[in-house]
């Protein structure tokens, strides 16, 4: 154990417009869990993608077990014994779990070109048994939830029996119980001598699982620390290059008692069951619950993105009929989805067009002519107001970091001047530095009189930001807490309050 498996030195990689990696280095030993941290745009995913053959380095050296290697494509990396689990799921939804896991290495019968279905399903079942996963190898991947798809990705990486396993944000969509299981597997691998690279923003988790932590910033290698000697403040300091004072949550300004939104007895099949709540002006209402509790479904129903079967919605005391997002926006309701790349942004367009995307009615003149000067100034105003880091308004949105993309989506809705803002996981995939900027922004908006619903699976975030917390479980609202009563335990209690059947797994609350 403890031999150096991978050594990367002097790695440079640039894409049009950005130097992603500048003289970066990394070292991985066998039998260790090595965390890789940094703000969005720091280069951690890029560096690992170079190692996994997804990108080809511009210059630098990679040594595998002491020998220099050139990794030109994913297959070459696989041959060396390097596997990667990407942040974005790389699965074929139309194929079954077994077919996905063994793609490219399908077992064949004695007739070399005929596939052996029995063998592929058996091998997959064995893999699932080892991982204690209750899944049927013959299910189509597209029929699974995101969390289960992520477990399939993990199973696929494990099936390679690699010596190097890279995991990019593996816990993003998992419940606490699933995370515990994942860590059990990681420790098992480590004890077997595998070198595991764990990229994550969740510093508390990394303190639990990793042996060493490497910090990167702006494409550069900063330092490597022993986990047991490092403090979270120290790590954050190195990540952002400055100290962020994590102030304890201040007592929030009391919101007015004006009800801007009332939802009464909302129902949709099995997903939304008799949901009623209200939102005061200037309030931040936290929506808490486990993944799958139905919070996003409620938000999408209010926003008109999905139909609902029964229920009433009142905006500023007036009953409204919301059948589409257009109706919602006309009633000053905005929804920022949890998958901003898929639902919030037009990645191929530039910053300016994304910011004005909801506001074209303000900019249209005769025969649909767009007032481009006005568009430009609106876009400029919001980029400045929210400190969005972009070289120019014409920069394509897909080239921005996650935090800046999120700010852009917020800017879009502010440009439209909506008053009720529903945020779904606003800081998912965003680094510590940008997170506190978003929190500051949310507080400012609330103080200006905007009303905010914040759906989040991160308890510290809910506790810090909300005036009130609504908790959902399996489609129902199970509890409502004032900020004085809200604690991790009280929220968790409501979040796991299933009706009827005894709960078999009670997730442990992350420390």
């Amino acid at each position: 154990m403890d031999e150096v498996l991978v050594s990367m030195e002097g790695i440079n990689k640039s894409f049009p417009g950005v130097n992603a990696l500048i003289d970066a280095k990394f070292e991985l030993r066998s039998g260790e869990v090595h965390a890789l941290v940094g703000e969005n745009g720091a280069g951690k995913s890029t560096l690992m993608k170079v190692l996994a053959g997804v990108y080809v380095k511009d210059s630098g050296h990679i040594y595998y077990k002491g020998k220099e290697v050139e990794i030109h494509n994913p297959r070459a990396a696989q041959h060396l014994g390097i596997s990667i689990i990407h942040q974005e799921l790389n699965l074929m939804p139309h194929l079954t779990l077994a077919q996905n896991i063994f793609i490219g290495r399908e077992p064949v019968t004695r007739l070399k070109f005929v596939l052996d279905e029995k063998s592929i399903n058996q091998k997959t079942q064995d893999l699932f048994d080892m991982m204690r996963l209750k899944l049927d190898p013959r299910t189509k991947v597209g029929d699974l939830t995101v969390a289960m798809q992520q477990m399939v990705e993990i199973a696929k990486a494990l099936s390679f029996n690699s010596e190097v396993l890279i995991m990019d944000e593996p816990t993003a969509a998992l419940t606490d119980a699933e995370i515990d299981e994942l860590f059990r597997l990681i420790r098992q691998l480590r004890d077997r001598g595998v070198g595991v690279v764990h990229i994550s923003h969740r510093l508390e988790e990394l303190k639990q699982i990793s042996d060493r932590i490497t910090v990167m910033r702006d494409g550069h290698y900063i330092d490597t620390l022993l986990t047991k000697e490092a403090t979270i403040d120290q790590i954050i300091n190195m990540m952002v290059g400055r100290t962020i004072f994590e102030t304890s949550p201040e007592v929030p300004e009391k919101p007015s008692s004006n009800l801007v939104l009332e939802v009464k007895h909302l129902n949709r099949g099995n997903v939304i069951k008799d949901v009623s709540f209200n939102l005061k002006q200037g309030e931040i209402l936290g929506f808490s619950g486990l993944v799958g509790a139905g919070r996003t479904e409620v938000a999408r129903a209010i926003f008109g993105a999905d139909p609902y079967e029964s229920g009433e919605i009142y905006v500023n005391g007036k009953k409204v009929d919301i059948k589409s997002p257009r109706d919602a926006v006309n009633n000053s309701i905005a929804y920022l989805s949890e998958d901003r790349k898929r639902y919030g942004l037009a990645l191929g367009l530039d910053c300016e067009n994304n910011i004005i995307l909801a506001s074209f009615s303000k900019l249209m003149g005769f025969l649909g002519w767009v007032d481009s000067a006005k568009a430009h100034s609106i876009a400029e105003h919001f980029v400045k107001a929210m400190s969005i880091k972009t070289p120019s308004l014409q920069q394509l949105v897909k080239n921005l970091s996650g935090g800046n993309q999120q700010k852009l989506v917020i800017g879009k809705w502010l440009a439209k001047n909506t008053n009720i803002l529903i945020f779904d996981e606003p800081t998912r995939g965003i680094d510590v530095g940008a997170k506190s900027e978003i929190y500051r922004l949310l507080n400012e908006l609330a103080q200006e009189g905007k009303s905010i619903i914040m759906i989040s699976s991160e308890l510290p975030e809910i506790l810090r930001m909300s005036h009130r917390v609504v908790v959902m479980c399996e489609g129902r609202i199970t509890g409502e807490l004032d900020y004085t009563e809200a604690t991790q335990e009280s929220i968790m209690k409501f979040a796991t309050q299933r009706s009827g059947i005894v709960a078999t797994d009670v997730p442990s609350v992350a420390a």
Partner: protein
Amino acid sequence: MTKSEAAPKRNLLQSDAMQRLLAFGALTLIFVGFSIASSNFLKFDNVVGILIATAVNGVLALGVTFVIITGGIDLSIGTLMTLSAVMTGVFITFWQLPVPLGILAGLLTGAFAGFVNGVLISRLKIPPFIATLGMLNIAKGLSLVISGLKPIYFNDTPVFNQMAMGSMLGSIFPGFDIPNAVLIMFGAAIVAHLILTKTVVGRYNFALGSNEEATRLSGVNTNMWKTAIYTLCGLFAGLAGVIMAARLNSAQPALGAGYELDAIAAAVIGGTSLSGGEGTMLGTIIGAFIISTLNNGLRIISVPQEWQSVVTGSILILAVYLDIIRRRRQ
């Protein structure tokens, strides 16, 4: 571990098998409908006529199904068919080479053109619509050039025509005179089905259509397999060309353009999704039969030929729309 969560389950109505069942049900309904409307419909000769008419389109549709499942499209199959027929004519009639060699030439012409399509699309990254549109025109032109603008006849080699229009079945079971071309089509359908469901090519076919990038990142040589699939489609177009030449006893260089649309319609009516990742050969064959049965039945009840296209187009839209509704999840 945790309870195994599932996204909203697809119910029985939405399963793949149901889709094919519904398509088959539609075909049966059309059959029944026309039999009631006209006593001439169910006559043996007429049904055989439907079978023959489906032979060429069916084989084309089988080939293009592979390509559509990858999320691509092949507009050149119609003129490729013609080019293959012309090449067969060149080998057999111009150069007086043995018939089997001529058939091989036809098949390889289609396969080679398909290979070129595949390279243009996978290596040069030209969008399938454009690449195959270009090939459509090239093949059309080449057919005219090579044939000298005139049909090539196979009068000196009657065995060629017999291969398609003769009836092996008829010589074994008297009175059961189904032309060989129909058997060839069914044989091709079985082969296509086996390739799609049981071999590595078929597996990668679905993988590419479902998520090409994920497939590439899984270490699969996506360029190579994509090219292979377009080559396969070209091969089937070549087969269709050979069948058509044998059936008409001539290679008609001006025919062909337009056939690709019926083939694609057949695949789509049969449940192949244009966005890729889904499709079956059984569905495609049913789709091809639906089109030819409709055309035949309308003719029998004396609907003018112009109206047949209107009906086919409407059926296509209706079929896809019903499928979209069927797939909608809660």
